[in-house]
Every structure is written in C-alpha cells, then in structure tokens.
C-alpha cells in the first residue's frame, strides 16, 4: 500500500463514520419535528434527548476530522475545493450552527421548547445532507472551470444537473432510513413499544426511496462520467453484496425481529456501497483535475500524520468504548431510569 492509499482510506473511513452517526442525528431531529407537528411529540423526544445530547459533539468532531485531515494529506484540495465551495460550505456551517445551538439552548440550557425552534432544528437535518452532498456531484467533474488558473463553480450546470439532484435525494432518503433503523433498535432497547412501532414504520417507508435513488445514480453516471461508470461496473459484486445486506435489514424490520442485527446489516450495506463507490472513484479526488497522487503532501508530513493518527486512535478507541458503554449499552440509562445530568 502506498502512503496515498493509506491516507485516503483513513479519510474515507472517517467520512463513512460521520455519514452514519450524522445521519442518525439529522434524521432523529427531523422525526422529532415531524412528531411535534403531528402532536405525537412525547413518543420520540425522550429517546432523542437521551441518546443524542451526550454524543452530538463527538459526531461533529468526525466532520472536523475529515476536513482537517484532507487538507493535511492532500493540501491541494484546499485550492480547488476551498475556492469553489465557499457558498455551499458556508450554508452548511449555518445549518450546523442551528443544530448545535438547539442542543445548547433547548436541551442543555433553559429548555426553550419553542415549536419554531424544533421545526428549524428538524428541517436543518434534511437541509444539511442536501447542502453537503453536492460535493460528491462536483467531484465527478464537469461543474468546475478554470479561469485564468483559478477554479470557479458553474452553478447553472450544477443546478440543472439530474446527477446532482439524484445525489441530493439519495442523501435525504438515506439519512431518514439510517436514522429510522437505528432508532427502531434504540426504542426497542428502551422498551418503548409505541416509539418502536412508529420509527419502524418510518424505516420501512424510507427503505424503498433509498435503494431506488441509489440505483438511479449509477445510471446517471453512465452519461455524466463514463470512466467512473466503467469502474463502478467492475466492482458490481460489491454493490450486489450491499443489496443483499439491504434486503436482510428490510426483512428483519418487516418481521419485527433482531433489530440490533438489522442495524448492523445496514451499516454493512452502507459500508460496502460507500467503499465500492470510493474505490471506483480512484485515483481522482476531482475529475479530471486532481488525483490523490498529484495532490499528495510530502513524504515526511505523510508519515508524521500517520503516526499521529495511530497514536490518536490509541487514545480515541478506549474513550469511545467508554462513551458507548455508558450511553448506548447501559440498560438503565437507555430506559431513562437513571438521570445523572449535571
């Protein structure tokens, strides 16, 4: 393995982890708002506050890890993506601020449970994937021009592109699906029958759109970026595996059993699809301008970053284990029997 491959794999793995944990967070916010809207709030709010409040800062660090890491390993991405993403990334930052402040002001703080705030928080959960996912479309090439050596984004081409919109729809559907499957498991563990049934229904509703749009994107790519399409097809078996895992999750949820296993299968489904997609994108970070090779940092920095990463993991994994043991796997905490908040 070359240093470039190690670097991009580490980043891709953390991006994947962010996609999963953030989807749970974003989707839960939306379901919470939706249930407030349809006057079923009491069913979900407790569960959401118990699980999400202690961990959202950790979720956010996964995101920070990704954008700091990519500048570290591939500094040239700062030049291409930094220049062009000013507007979409700033919008994403504002939306992240809405979420962060909701936790700060509404759940930790004075408990401002104004309805408008709950709706804003819920909607930001859908708008964030919509604001972040166009980066994937941009990376397929065709939306960025170089003018006098400076990159700029062709907004018109981007906003009229079916590829961009399918990716946006997929990201929203996937967020709701991932979140619903996780919450089904969590609500079931909490022994909350009513909540389980509610989120189980959401999981089944969003399974279909997720798989349909995901397949749709592969076909969009055929026209947009034939080179990428060809390498996707070379990895067809990974997508097939991903599809089988998807069927497994839906089957279990449908049959109302093994919700924990259902969630694990779902993680497997997204893991295989995400890595197959990433591998087929190789070696490009941005078609056709930037590959992982020509944007890579110097060797001494790469080695230093990898050493720091390994040392960091040594610190991180035990701490994460502790966090999950206390808040995800602790029966009394999950059931809301013990409240030790400061």
């Amino acid at each position, binding site marked *: 393995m070359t240093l470039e491959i190690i670097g991009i794999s580490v980043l891709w793995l953390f991006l994947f982890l962010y996609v999963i944990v953030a989807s749970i967070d974003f989707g839960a916010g939306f379901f919470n708002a939706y249930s407030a809207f349809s006057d079923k709030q009491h069913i979900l709010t407790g569960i959401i506050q118990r699980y999400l409040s*202690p961990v959202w*800062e*950790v979720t*956010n*660090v996964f*995101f*920070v*890890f990704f*954008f*700091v*890491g990519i*500048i*570290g*390993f591939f*500094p*040239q991405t*700062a*030049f*291409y993506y*930094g*220049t*062009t*993403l*000013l*507007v979409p*990334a*700033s919008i994403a*930052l*504002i939306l*992240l*601020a809405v979420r*962060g*402040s909701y*936790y*700060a*002001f509404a759940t*930790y*703080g*004075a408990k*401002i449970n104004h309805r408008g705030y709950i709706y804003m928080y819920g909607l930001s959960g859908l708008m964030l994937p919509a604001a972040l996912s166009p980066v994937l479309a941009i990376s397929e090439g065709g939306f960025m021009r170089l003018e006098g050596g400076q990159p*700029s984004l062709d907004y018109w081409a981007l906003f009229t592109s079916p590829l961009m919109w399918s990716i946006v729809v997929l990201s929203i559907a996937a967020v709701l699906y991932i979140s619903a499957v996780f919450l089904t498991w969590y609500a079931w563990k909490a022994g909350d029958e009513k909540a389980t049934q509610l989120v189980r229904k959401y999981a089944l509703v969003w399974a279909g759109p997720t798989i349909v749009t995901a397949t749709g994107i592969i076909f969009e790519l055929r026209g947009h970026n034939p080179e990428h399409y060809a390498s996707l097809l070379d990895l067809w078996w990974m997508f097939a595996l991903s599809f089988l895992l998807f069927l497994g999750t839906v089957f279990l949820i449908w049959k109302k059993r093994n919700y924990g296993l259902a969630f694990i299968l779902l993680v497997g489904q997204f893991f295989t699809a995400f890595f197959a997609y990433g591998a087929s994108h190789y070696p490009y970070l941005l078609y056709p301008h930037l590959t992982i090779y020509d944007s890579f*940092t*110097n060797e*001494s*920095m790469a080695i230093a*970053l990898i050493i*720091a990463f390994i*040392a*960091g993991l040594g*610190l*991180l994994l035990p*701490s994460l284990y*502790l*966090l999950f043991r*206390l*808040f995800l796997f602790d029966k009394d905490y999950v059931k809301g029997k*013990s409240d*030790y*908040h*400061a």
Partner: protein
Amino acid sequence: MALQSRILTLMTLSFHIIYATIGVGVPLMIMIAQWVGIRKNDEHYILLARRWARGFVITVAVGVVTGTAIGLQLSLLWPNFMQMAGNVIALPLFMEVFAFFFEAIFLGIYLYTWDRFEDQRKHFLLLVPVALGAAASSVFITIVNSFMNAPQGFDVLNGELVNVSPLLAMFSPAVPTKVAHVLSTAFMTSAFVLASIAAFRLLRGSNHIYHKKALFLTMKLALIFSVATAIIGDFSGKYLAEYQPEKLAAAEWHFETGSEAELVLFGVLEGEEPKYAIRIPYALSILAHGVPSGEVIGLNDFPEDEIPPLWIHYLFDTMVTLGMWLAFFSFVYVIGAWRGWSIVTRKWFRWLTVLSGPLAMLAIQAGWWFTEVGRQPWILRGYMKTSEGATTSGQVDLMIVMFAGLYVILGIGTVVVLSRMYKRNPVEKELAQRESVKGGEE
C-alpha cells in the same frame, strides 16, 4: 478578496476566542472547585463546580459551532495559504482534532454521570481529560499560529517546498511564549469571569456564603494567573524583539534604532513624534532585552511595505494596561479579604469586580488583534503576503452578512439562556433541595 476574507476571519475568530477562552479555562476552575469540595467535604464547592459545569456545556456547544466555522473557513477563505501551509504545518492541526475528540467524549460522560458513582473522586477524575483536551487543543492551534509568525522547518526551491520537517515547523521560536501566554490568559480570564458572576450575585442582594466562597476562590486564582500572565508577557516582548522586531517597533512607535529606548503609552502620532503620551524611560529596552542599554530595532530599518499598521500601538497598550490593572486589583482584593479590610465588601468595589471579567475578555481580544494585525502584511511572515493567500471567490461579502447575523443570534442566545437557566434555579433553592434529599436518606 483579501479585505473581505480578512473581515470575515477577524469576525469569526474574535467571536470564537470568547468561547474558546472559557472552554480552556473553566474546566480547570471546575476541577479546582470540585477538588476543594471533596477535600474539605464542603457541599458549597461541589455545588459550585456543578453549577459552573451546567453553564459550561452551553458555552462549549457554541464554541464547537464557531470553531467548526473557523476551521472550515480557513480553507474557504485562504485556499492558497492553506495549500502551502498544509504541506508544513498540518501536523498540529491534525493532532488538535484528537484533542477535540478526547475533550468532547469525556465532557459528555462527565456531565451525564453526576452522582452516578459512589466515590466522588471517580467522577472528578473524568474531568481531567476534559481539561487536558481543552488545553491541548489551544496548545496545538497556538502552535499553528506561532508558525505563521515565525515559519521554519522547510526550504523553498524554485517555488517548491522542499526538506519539510513537520516537527521543526511545530516548534518554532514563537511557541514557548505564545503557548504559555495563551494558556495563562485563558485561566486568568476564566477566573475573572467567574468572579464577576459571584460579585454580581452578591450585589443583587444574595448574601449567601456560597457566593462569598466562590468570589474568594476565583479571585485568588485570578491573582495567580494575572501575575503569571504579566511575567510571560514580558518574555513575549523579548521574543518579539528577537524574531519579529517590526511588530514590537510598530507597537511602540519606535522609529530610530537605539538603546535606552522609552516605552510610549497611548498618545497620538504626529509624523514620527508621539504626542500627549505617557513615556516611561528605558522601559522599552527593558521589555525587549531586560537591560536599559538594550538596543531596540526601529521601524526605519524596515522596507516601507513590510511595516505593520501603526494603530496596533493602541491594542498593545490596551492589553498591557488591562493586564497591570487586573493584577493590581486582584492583589488588593486578596490581601483585603485576607486581612479583613472593609473596602473589598463595598458596593463600588464589587462593581469593579463585576467589571473585571469583561475587561479580561477585552484584553484577550486586544492581544489577538495585536498579534494578528501586527503580522501584516504577511500571512506567513517572510514567505506569503496576506493578499496572496486569499480566495478569489467573489461571494465573501454575502458570507460576512450571513455570519454576522449568526454570531449576533448565538451571542444573544448564550446570554439569554445562561441567565434564564440560573434565574430559574437559584442556589438557595438548590441548596435547600439537596439538604432535604440528604436528610431523607439519613
């Protein structure tokens, strides 16, 4: 777009630094209070720690939001700079992320496990990684900033960066004074902010011993860290004289190189002559070299276009004056409280105490503006000008408006939520509740 990028960077950083300072300093204060509480078996200190922790979560959350903004904005607004700097100084930025992880994880655990352990010392231990993580993240980011002021650890060959040494870049000459000064000012400011709150409660009629204990504890800590800050600040001046003489000269309106230089406080500049200023003979030479005969390099020795804006003089004076005042003030308080002087319980004295938190925060702002504006026109001193580092995107103006709105809302939200939270649950009520619970158990 350099001007707009500078405005937005300045805005985001100035806002973030308020929360970051609290984020670095307050965990240590909570730790000290909780430790004193456990040692003395004094319920008041434990409750103090607990109430500070509750407020702290809120400031941390806003700190995380604004920190994420500045982290992303560095690449959005300064893509050319980050592309170059990423090759050399990415290591501490990357390590900082692990410090964030560490802090965020243990903060989550700490907050949600009050009273969960039989042995309170176990819960106390959970705070140690929070304080360490917060301090480490400020150390790493300050290392990055030091590199911008005194870059090293690479060579430039035909426009390419070669011979990069990440470790050498991390330990630039600016690091020791900068890191130490940033840490001690964060502790000092947090202590003053908490002292302000206690003094304010006392002024508002609550005469509870709880607030008096809080005030005395925080003022003692404030005194310790103010003195440390002033000493380290003196070393910072010596660092500047050696490595960034143009910044020191601009701060002091010192035009002609010479020994026995005087320190100029405030005043206005007419040509090269400071008017209406307070002049302290020899003091600049002493600040720069420790002896009156020290030779201080003047602005006339630098090319015209590499001189920082001269108004940083006022920023430097503001910081130093406030530093001196706060050290003196906390000294008077501590001695007074210890010897039982009555002035320290007077109303006007209490109001001065209330003022000290905001003043310390103002000194932090003045200090950062001073270093950052004083580095101009460079973004990477000697290698890259600020204008070369900026984005070419034309939409920064709009983003300035958007983020300004966001910070106003977050700022007001913080104040409203914090004051509401404490008002709804005053100490007296909480103490009474805890008494009755305890009574019930026995």
